[in-house]
């Protein structure tokens, strides 16, 4: 740090500089940064796999990757992105950093456990990397039996163990967050004064705590079956591979809500701040998070409509899947109503929010298509499904993550990034995303199956469009990496509250001191009391 600063306040960053002060930190803010590093690495890695997939698919022939290598590519893309990016991104990076600040706490309830969660996460990631170095895994991220337990000759064991280990990071983080939100709120911070991001994190923690143990035991059974020849799902012994699918989706469908609920919380924060308005229907938005968490546990078998489940259970699961659309729509309508007559401030975080709203709308509505029994049989295992879940998990979750990262970046680092470049990135991501995944809806509807490295020549035009969009999307994701890194050293000093936002995290300095607040705040106000009149005043 050669830059001359006269008197430097002590922050969570500069109070100690040694490597071990980071390795052994119990500060939730530093742990958030540690997660940011691993998650960003995983995002880059998953992006490389995606690039290879899209390159292969620009021509109908299998000219870049063999079928076997292609199987490994989409599997490792899925495993990396789901377990090491989408699940931890918002809760573990942003949640860890801002949640205690937002409720006026000095730290999470169990700081040492929080650090342990990060180590567990990283060890799980290293296992997964090891499996990739040793040749990768080819089962698809869903690890369906009996292929995963018997057929596959790839590194299912190491990957399975890696994901199993990582699950405990999720469980412990969820536990820590729940206890923190219950027991560590500042005086006066009642449940209905909690920012909506906290409600979203609480709902997410419920899913993490109730769902993740089931995937853990399922993967353990798979690993024991493959490694020690125990027979649980083995059809030769009378075991049922479809039972594995039930157990897998009992976690993995709610996991979609682990991925989307926290970004939804981010949207509520950002949209209120940049419209200078209270969130329309606060309690509806808060309870819709809980409703999504609860309904989310009752829809898993819609992944099994073609797996031979009974028509009656299919009927019920179809109905319940439609029902999840209700709380999701409640949120979308309420955000739109929040914008109505708001004083909208066009800054980078808000651009990502608009991107989220558009993409989540498409993703959510196509989900309703897939919940319909008849249509789902036509669309199962086609690119329509691929497009749908990317609209939710990338268009929704990653857009929301970027919105939050850009919103809280000044708080995390004390610096401002270049807003013009930020808006450009948001625009490129939005355009690139639609060009990548829009054509895939048509491809899937026309019958192109997923998970093949070759396809009939008549599908080439749409695939070329998709690959072209992917390159725009790639550039869109690279730009923030550049200007955010640049801002660390050269960015304008942010000050404690550059957005003029309400919320306790903005009342302390940027970056915050280790103990978060000089004095424990006492809360006497509602979460989004924006004085509508002074909009111009903040746009300094």
């Amino acid at each position, binding site marked *: 740090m050669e830059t001359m600063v006269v008197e430097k306040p002590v922050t969570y960053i500069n109070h100690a500089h040694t490597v071990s002060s980071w390795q052994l930190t119990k500060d939730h803010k530093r742990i958030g940064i540690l997660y940011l590093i691993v998650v960003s690495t995983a995002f880059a890695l998953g992006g490389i796999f995606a690039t290879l997939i899209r390159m292969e698919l620009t021509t109908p022939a299998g000219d870049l990757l063999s079928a076997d290598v292609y199987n490994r590519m989409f599997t490792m893309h899925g495993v990396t992105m789901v377990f090491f990016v989408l699940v931890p991104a918002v809760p573990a990076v942003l949640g860890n950093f801002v949640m205690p600040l937002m409720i006026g706490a000095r730290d999470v309830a169990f700081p040492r456990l929080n650090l342990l969660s990060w180590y567990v996460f990283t060890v799980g990631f290293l296992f997964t990397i090891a499996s990739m170095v040793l040749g990768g895994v080819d089962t698809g991220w869903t690890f369906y039996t009996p292929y995963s337990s018997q057929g596959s000759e790839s590194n299912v064991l190491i990957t399975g163990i890696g994901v199993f280990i990582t699950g405990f990071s999720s*469980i412990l983080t969820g536990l820590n967050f729940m206890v923190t939100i219950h*027991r560590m709120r500042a005086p006066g911070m009642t449940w209905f004064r909690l920012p909506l991001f906290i409600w979203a994190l609480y709902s997410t923690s419920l899913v993490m705590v*109730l769902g993740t143990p089931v995937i853990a035991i*399922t993967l*353990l059974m798979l690993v024991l079956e493959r490694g*020690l020849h125990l027979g649980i799902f083995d059809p030769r012994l009378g075991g049922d591979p479809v*039972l594995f699918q039930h157990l897998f989706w009992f976690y993995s469908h709610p996991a979609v809500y682990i991925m989307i609920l926290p970004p939804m919380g981010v949207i509520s924060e950002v949209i209120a701040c940049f419209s200078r308005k209270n969130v329309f229907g606060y309690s509806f938005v808060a309870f819709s998070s809980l409703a999504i968490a609860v309904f989310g546990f009752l829809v898993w078998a819609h992944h099994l409509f073609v797996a031979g489940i009974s028509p009656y259970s299919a009927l019920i699961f179809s109905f319940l899947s439609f029902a999840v659309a209700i709380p999701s729509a409640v949120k979308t309508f309420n955000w739109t109503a929040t914008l109505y007559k708001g004083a909208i401030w066009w800054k980078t975080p808000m651009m990502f929010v608009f991107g989220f709203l558009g993409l989540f709308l498409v993703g959510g509505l196509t989900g309703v298509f897939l919940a319909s029994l008849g249509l789902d049989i036509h669309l199962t295992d086609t690119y329509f499904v691929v497009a749908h879940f990317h609209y939710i998990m990338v268009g929704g979750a990653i857009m929301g993550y970027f919105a939050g990262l850009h919103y809280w970046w000044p708080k995390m680092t004390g610096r401002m990034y270049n807003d013009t470049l930020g808006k450009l990135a948001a625009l490129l991501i939005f355009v690139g995303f639609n060009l990548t995944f829009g054509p895939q809806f048509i491809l899937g509807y026309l019958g192109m199956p997923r998970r093949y490295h070759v396809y009939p020549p008549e599908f080439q035009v749409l695939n070329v469009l998709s690959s072209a969009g992917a390159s725009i999307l790639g550039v869109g994701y690279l730009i923030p990496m550049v200007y955010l890194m640049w801002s660390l050293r050269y960015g304008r000093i942010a000050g404690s509250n550059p957005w003029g936002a309400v919320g306790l995290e903005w009342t302390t300095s940027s970056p915050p001191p280790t*103990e978060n607040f000089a004095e424990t705040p006492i809360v006497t106000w509602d979460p989004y009391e924006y004085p509508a009149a002074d909009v111009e005043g903040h746009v300094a």
Partner: protein
Amino acid sequence: MPEAVHHHHPALAHHFDDLEQQKEAATLGMWVFLVTEVLFFGGLFLVYTVYRAWYSEAFAVASHELDVTLGTINTAVLITSSLTMALAVHAAQLGQRRLVIIFLVATMALGAAFLGIKSIEYYHKFTEHHVPGPSFAFEPHEYARHAQIFFSLYFIMTGLHALHMVIGLGIMTWMLWWAWRGTITAEYYSPIEVSGLYWHFVDIVWIFLFPLLYLIGRHVH
């Protein structure tokens, strides 16, 4: 409360306001953890339920191969260990250091006895070729395939339970050390109480495992 400011218990972590808040957080944390454990074991119980419904006869026959005498003794051992654990928590609340140590040692001894008996059972199963895998053998032959599923579940369920016991013994060793050096007092006993919750939970899992695995064939023969 001017005294409260000066009064700083050595066990109070910096981010809590007082010991009460710290205790509430620890207790809630353990209960939430036990919920995750219920779901963790719940996956196994679900699989067990499905296969037992499908292959009830084979499960009953295979269940007969388990040693009910040793299983019953182990159940008694474990229930007694829950009693000594509860007594250890009670003694901790009253600040009776010596009694805490005695009851913790008793709990650990009973836990170790359970694991010892369990390993004798495992050894028998190993010599009888009832461990699933290539060398698995079972008479009558028509039940062999489904019996292998039964024994797969038997080993996973009891094995995971035993692993939890081992972890419990580790926690008890740690608590013993804390009680020994005097950290545990009538004012600060929540670590013992929370460890007790864990210990009782592991016992309860066994209370379900014992009838489901050992006793299902009893009424048939």
